[in-house]
């Protein structure tokens, strides 16, 4: 029976190992483990981290599972025989090794991933106007509400929360290959702004104002998903999103502005 159980305990890690290897080696269909391909540079660096840490996991999984399965397997003959179990209480060197090595790896990982974090979360993109470097102003004020998304575009004055904002519902169109900054606010409860292709997620807390930014390649048919429980209609709280060429974007916004009444932004 030991053989049977050893094999049983080998199957799951083996399956997981195959999946993880496919992720690390970017093999279709599991190259991104169910996620769509990223369409921006930070998305790619996040995916690199994703593969890296899953690769580390694959290694740990491999060694731990092999030893477990082997322990079970080797004891198959012990059942009938007279061999006794080894009398080992501990092994200082071994214990130091399996604390220090994973510790060092994790510490390295901790510092290694910080750059991606600060790129995506801390360093808001800047632009140079005249002599000055200033933060890119938000292009759109995103207002989340039960159960839909409102997009208030900065109008001709290039500022959100002014009278000439252009209001669109449940469709976000943004220019490609430009730094786009969004300001996120909620009208009622907590929501969360998730675009899988951008590897971007941000909760939207009532009473707070959040900024997110990205610089994406053109893409059609993206979807914004709400990822914080916001009530019964949470699952319906989705909007379409498109990343289009800047020229297309400008003319689209102009057209929308013309047919739009001045939006109420508050």
């Amino acid at each position, binding site marked *: 029976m030991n053989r049977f159980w050893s094999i049983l305990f080998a199957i*799951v890690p083996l399956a997981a190992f195959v999946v993880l290897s496919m992720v690390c080696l970017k093999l279709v269909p599991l190259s991104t483990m169910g996620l769509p391909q990223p369409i921006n540079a930070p998305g790619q660096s996040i995916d690199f981290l*994703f593969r890296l840490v899953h690769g580390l996991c694959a290694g*740990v999984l491999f060694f731990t599972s092999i030893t477990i399965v082997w322990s079970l397997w080797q004891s198959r003959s012990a059942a009938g025989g007279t061999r006794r179990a080894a009398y080992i209480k501990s092994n200082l060197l071994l214990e130091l090794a399996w604390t220090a090595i994973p510790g060092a790896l*994790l510490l390295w990982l901790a510092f290694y991933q910080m750059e991606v974090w600060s790129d995506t979360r801390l360093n808001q993109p800047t632009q140079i106007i005249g002599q000055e470097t200033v933060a890119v102003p938000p292009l759109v004020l995103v207002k989340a509400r039960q159960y839909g998304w409102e997009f208030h575009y900065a109008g001709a004055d290039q500022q959100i929360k002014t009278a000439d904002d252009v209001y669109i519902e449940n469709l976000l169109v943004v220019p490609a290959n430009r730094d786009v900054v969004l300001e996120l606010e909620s009208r*009622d409860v907590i929501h969360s702004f998730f675009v899988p292709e951008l590897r971007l997620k941000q909760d939207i807390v*009532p009473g707070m104002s959040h900024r997110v930014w990205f610089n994406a390649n053109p893409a059609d048919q993206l979807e914004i998903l709400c990822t914080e429980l916001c009530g*019964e209609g949470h699952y319906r709280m989705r909007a379409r999103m498109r990343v289009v060429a800047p020229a297309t974007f400008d003319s689209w916004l102009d057209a929308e502005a013309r047919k739009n009444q001045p939006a109420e932004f508050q």
Partner: protein
Amino acid sequence: MIAGRTTHHTPHTTHRKPKTENRKPHTDNRTLTPSPLNPFSTHHRVIGLWYLFSCLIWLGIGGLLALAIRWQLAWPWSNMPILGSWLFADSGGTITPEFYTVLFTMHASVMIFFVLIPILTGGFGNLLIPPMIGAKSLAFPQLTRIAFWLMWLAFGAMVLSFLTPARGAASGWTAYPPLSVFGGNFGTGDASGNRVAQAWWLVGILLTSVSSLLVAINHVTTILQMRALGMTMFRLPATVWAMLVTSIMQLLALPILILASVMQWTDISLGTGFFIPAEAAHSVAGGQVLLWQHLFWFYGHPAVYIMILPAMGMVSDILACFARKPLFGYHSMVWSNIAIASLGFIVWGHHMFVSGMNFTIAMSFMISTMLIALPSGVKVFNWIGTLWGGRLQLTTPMLLGVGFVSMFIIGGLSGVVMSVPPVDVVLHDTHYVVAHIHYVLFGSSVLGMFGAIYFWFPLMFGRLMSERLGKLHFLTTFIFLNGTFLPMHLLSRMPRRYADPYADSLAEFLPLNQWITWCAMGMAASQLIFLANFLWSLRFGILSQSNPWQSNGLEWSGVDSNAANDDNEPLEVFRWPYEYSSPDRESDFFPQWEKESDQPERNESPNGD
């Protein structure tokens, strides 16, 4: 096979046979002096059994709720068989989006607050701590029973929550305001009475917290004060160490949950505004939405370890016993408990990487989270060290123990993946998190709990559970559990808590979800094997000798520490509980209560199998 051998019934003699006069003749040497059926008993063992039975009932309820969730995710808006027409009569047998929200809220609440925490601490803690440390009872017998009855009161509050028109609380087990405080749909007011349901839910949570607090006080005091002669701290079995550390964590964490749930309750019922920002409509105060998340996770993260440490302890004891080897790295096992408990209080921010919490402080939570993976890893390595070179007896509890380790590896690793903040940004609030929590909570804690039931069943009832059914139960549970939760890792694009995700970009995930639901149903059905085995063995299981697994633990000494046997000599402990296969001895175990000088009688088959 153990079960076969014990039919000859040759109790392993201890050096100190309890006096037999006070014993009822038919009960071997394990007298159930206090009536085991008296729920108002103050006896740790009786109440422990009541905890066990109650939690198993609640486990059944939580499981049915899970099946309803899975039904909706596989066949959205279609009539649910059997339960549907009864539960969802108003909507013609289908689950409404409102009720779907209730379902996952209540599933998690029941499983966490009514199954895992109470069964591990109140159930196994009450049952095992006194006999394992050689105490006659717990330190505060009154608290033992009050704590238990608070659990049923708490369950009553949950039922009241269910009886409101809203049919139960609906803001997730995490109960984030303002949703939880406003209730339901903001614009239309609280038409469906969600606020009332949520208020009752909070009362329930409050009561379970008070109950756990009493259990924790009781256990800490008992373990520190009532150990038998010779039972030093470093002779305590891993189970007791885990219970001690768990209780201390509870003592530190629960007050925060109690406080926070009172605050949320007053926000709902008395119109305070702790968690309601000034900007919100109807707001009277300038509260902080994120304050709740900080308070909740300050409790919530320690809580997840409260739900696994006792299981880790019990599995350590089971593995050592059936590997016939000393628990590898006993001291590092103890210290890793303490490390986990301490670090556990400074990692809560990893639940809030995208919450709007300051992005720089996320880095310190990231580091502490990676650090907590270390003691968890040390435990895994020690378990493997225990198995390595052992003379493994693959009994049902042992299989469940190995299953625990193997599942914990997967769950722990996905935890490490999510501790990398840029990666967690993608995975947060998707089904990847659901996969993680079920590997640790079902794959580990629940398997460990089952293992403990199989292992200590003879101690509780004087009989062994059927090995045949037990192994079948393990096999099917193990297969279906992985069939259910492994594929969930591939759903990292699919948000959690969606009643019907299958529009547009998520449409492709329907078949995988149907597969998952089939496996979940198989997993639920497998538990019927356990139920049958449990009930059958209670009455017809093979009578067990006093130490059926030839374990070293003091709880198997056969000396009854029940109150009725006050005239027993006090137990004395001579060594740690892991003296298995010592080269100095003929027999491959050396129980804690046996004196060195005693030449152990040669058993017919000292080595099992």
